[in-house]
């Protein structure tokens, strides 16, 4: 069931504390508890509030233009091309780990997107040793959180999640290096922003179906989350990815009034290619996707397997055979 996939359920609280993964302090678990069962649930109410709509009417179009204008500047370009050790698989594992970590701290999807952007852009500038790669992951997450979260995780907590393999000093030093290399350019436009934007456009439009818009956003956010982990998707601009994910979500949910993708400004050919790849990604991750969706969404989605009950043996099994990878080094 979805409850097991995140939110209020107790897994982390039961941590023994003494082991490699001490539990997070109570303060942060509060945020997590309110974050509902999945990443997508929490901000919905606030973002759909009247003030938000009002601000959107005043400024939505210029927000979109300014963010879209920044996309190419913040787009990582083949971040792994010159990496001697870090591979696409390693990146996938790192991001797949950052996803539950961000949920663990009750962080926003925006923070996760920024962290991955910081990670990729740093990789494009600096060779990173495989054994520092995880440190880079948490450092990127920390920087992203300082940028957009009111309560960023503590350094100590992040170090604990890495089994204290790194020291505070190392993390702080790497933070300096990352900030320096990126020259403090951190305010990247994210797929999270564009998902919200297109959804707002849809809700503000006359005859827009708010319920459909919200469901599509939830599913699209889950799809976009998966895509963050796949290196192949680093080639897509966030706005294209957002449009593709929403288009796919509408299709999977068989919506009567799907989003008009033309408003993204992309040619149909590009949108199709992006949606095709996303659909493939979804079909390969059919078992795990429902875990990141708010309750009720995957049930309405005939092409996804129903939300697994309690234990999700399938997910377990697929985890088991995900082993035979050997990471090349040297």
């Amino acid at each position, binding site marked *: 069931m979805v409850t097991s996939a995140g939110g209020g359920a107790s897994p982390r609280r039961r941590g023994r504390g003494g082991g490699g993964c001490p539990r997070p302090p109570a303060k942060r678990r509060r945020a997590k508890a309110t974050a509902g069962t999945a990443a997508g649930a929490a901000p919905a109410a606030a973002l759909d509030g009247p003030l*938000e709509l009002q601000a959107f009417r005043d400024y939505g179009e210029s927000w979109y233009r300014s963010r879209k204008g920044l996309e190419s500047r913040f787009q990582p370009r083949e971040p792994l091309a010159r990496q001697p050790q870090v591979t696409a698989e390693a990146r996938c594992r790192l991001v797949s780990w950052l996803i539950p970590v961000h949920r663990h701290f009750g962080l926003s999807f925006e923070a996760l997107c920024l962290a991955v952007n910081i990670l990729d852009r740093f990789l494009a500038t600096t060779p990173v040793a495989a054994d520092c790669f995880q440190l880079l992951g948490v450092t990127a997450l920390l920087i992203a959180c300082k940028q957009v979260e009111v309560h960023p995780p503590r350094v100590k907590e992040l170090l604990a999640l890495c089994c204290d393999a790194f020291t505070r000093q190392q993390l702080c030093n790497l933070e300096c290096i990352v900030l320096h290399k990126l020259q403090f350019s951190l305010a990247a436009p994210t797929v999270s922003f564009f998902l919200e934007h297109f959804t707002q456009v849809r809700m503000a439009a006359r005859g827009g179906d708010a319920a459909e818009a919200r469901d599509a956003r939830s599913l699209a956010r889950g799809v976009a989350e998966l895509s963050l982990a796949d290196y192949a998707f680093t080639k897509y601009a966030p706005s294209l990815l957002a449009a593709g994910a929403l288009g796919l979500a509408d299709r999977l949910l068989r919506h009567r009034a799907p989003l008009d993708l033309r408003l993204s400004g992309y040619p149909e050919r590009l949108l199709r290619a992006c949606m095709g790849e996303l659909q493939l990604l979804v079909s390969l991750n059919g078992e795990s996707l429902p875990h990141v969706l708010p309750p009720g969404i995957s049930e309405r989605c005939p092409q996804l397997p129903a939300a697994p009950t309690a234990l999700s043996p399938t997910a377990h099994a697929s985890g088991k055979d995900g082993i035979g990878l050997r990471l090349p080094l040297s």
Partner: protein
Amino acid sequence: MIDSQAAEKISRMKKLRRTLSESFSRIALKKEDTSFDEICVTKMSTRNCQGMDSVIKPLDTIPEDKKVRVQRTQSSFDPFEKPTNQVKRVHSENNACINFKTSSAGKESPKVRRHSSPSSPTSPKFGKADSYEKLEKLGEGSYATVYKGKSKVNGKLVALKVIRLQEEEGTPFTAIREASLLKGLKHANIVLLHDIIHTKETLTLVFEYVHTDLCQYMDKHPGGLHPENVKLFLFQLLRGLSYIHQRYILHRDLKPQNLLISDTGELKLADFGLARAKSVPSHTYSNEVVTLWYRPPDVLLGSTEYSTCLDMWGVGCIFVEMIQGVAAFPGMKDIQDQLERIFLVLGTPNEDTWPGVHSLPHFKPERFTQYSPKNLRQAWNKLSYVNHAEDLASKLLQCFPKSRLSAQAALSHEYFSDLPPRLWELTDMSSIFTVPNVRLQPETGESIRVFGKNNSYGKGVSNSKH
């Protein structure tokens, strides 16, 4: 449609699926599988800490494995030390930074700093600090000290905001936000960030030097500012705000101290330490951000849903303060007192005047005296001396956030209609003082001139849209 896709694509995707499912199954399993308590995230980490060079073990074999490995890791493993040739390049840089950070180099001693990182050509070029000469201290904030400085390169004056780096949590979030947001902002009414200098213990933001701020300016000229100057300041404030609001950024900490004023009268928004991109769900906004006097009633009442209109309340307060010469709502005690002061003038809100006010966390009707709304001129008489000033102030000082005027809309208010039309056509980086006949008037202390007698814009007036 997918069937036609290449098989290799599938295999690539499969790899992805495996790892993804792994991580998801981890979450899914934790509930039942007790061993997951300690390894829910460790597995990944074990692999990443040191497992990159080894075959990944099946999920169920990792736990035993892991314990040993992790211990080894803790005792001897140093992620920054690895004798692989290829890795050296990477490490030399990291080490350079570490050495640098642990060395005793202070920012005032470039000698030591240079000493600390001579070996690594790729080391970050920290330590441009010596390109600025530090002059007197200008002020002290909660996380930074501001000094006047002088560039050794071109002799220009700068403001050096020296931020102490905390040992515990690394670079302060305020510094990260201020630097990253300001980097993208280039506007005549936003303070310009010249440079960022990162040294061992401090992070220094180098700003253009602006000689005073609105708070000091009003202290120097008590009793209300020259009405024409108020208009020019307000116009510039709105121009700067409109610029950042259009770029998805809220300032969130508007107050006279944060509005810098140059000797020619240019106003620049500064102190973006609490600013943030508006992109994050409102539930993460802290409701402790705005100085009480300039904090809008919705935030005082505990609303966490706020948007660009948050800054617009502050604009209204500052407008009144400039005209009247006293703060609009100088609360003396607490939030309750602050709200009372607001309601005394604007009336205690109810569901008719402010739909939804009853559901705000701190709104308890019995706690507030019932006041009826007044004309603003009753509270601040000087508003009535200037055409349309009261109307504009009342549109900004709306308790109900939705009714508050936006920065863009305020710029088109009649109050500004006697300004030269060219002011609305300026490019972002052009100062309003590039328009002919627009200039600061000398302040004359107590003087409040009756509107209409003033011809400071000369021709500009006859050309204006009025």
